């Protein structure tokens, strides 16, 4: 699980172009949206694509992402339980 969390942090920083944020600065329980990393609605869509592309998880309702993308910890657990690749 720790490897998955690290992988998620690296992918988020790289794919969402978070130039001013280092992987090691992201805590497993940091809020990804709002006051945490400050991700926006386009980032949420990018995360949905990332779930599909990297882990074979298709979210048909973008609203599902609201709960899944709460933090790295929550996201990693969801991926661990639902991944198809």
């Amino acid at each position, binding site marked *: 699980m720790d490897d998955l969390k690290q992988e998620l942090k690296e992918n988020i920083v790289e794919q*969402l*172009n*978070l*130039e*001013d944020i280092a992987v090691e600065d992201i805590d497993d329980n940091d809020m990804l949206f709002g006051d945490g990393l*400050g991700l926006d609605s*386009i*980032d949420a*869509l*990018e995360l949905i*694509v990332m779930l*599909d*592309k990297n882990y074979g998880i298709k979210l048909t309702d973008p609203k599902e992402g609201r709960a899944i993308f709460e933090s790295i910890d929550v996201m990693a657990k969801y991926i661990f339980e639902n991944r198809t690749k």
Partner: protein
Amino acid sequence: MNSKYHITSFCNIKNNTVSLNGSVIYNDENNDFLEFIKAAYKSFETDYAKFFKMDALSKLAFLAADVLLKNEDLNQEEENNIAIVFSNKASSIDTDRKHQKSIQDKEDYFPSPAVFVYTLPNICIGEISIKYKLFSENSFFIFDAFNAQHLFDYTNSLLATDKTEKVLCGWVELDGDHYEAFLYLVTKKGLTTHNKQNILKLYNT
């Protein structure tokens, strides 16, 4: 034809150089556009994390506008009555190609929303408007080449009809390795008369 308006400042970005009012304010030897524009952005100490998420055309337009508008002492907490009139030849072709590449292969079909949102040239106007709270008129024209006459006429019309107090206008072109930005600010006061001859002179600076 002369007008009663004036060009108060202008910015050129081309050939690895950023110039403000004809003076070089940043230069490096990096031939890669994205590396160059990132280094230039960092050198100006503009704290705006969204810059890194923009496509190449928006980065070019944003930086040129930022260099100009920083000089204007605008109140960034209030709405600023500045219209934007931009133009180019390549539209958003650079980002269009990236998007096309991501949907080319049906077996590897993962279009990026963050790329797709930039598949229109006028999105760069939105980026500038958000940063500087500009809610006034804006237009983006596509021409075969820099069209000083059209920019002159359109800008005069906006000012003459009191649609705006100032106009940020010019040319932001990006296609592959080729990039060029020339933006200038037209107002009711200033030293350089706003006319076609002066626009062309500053464009060729």
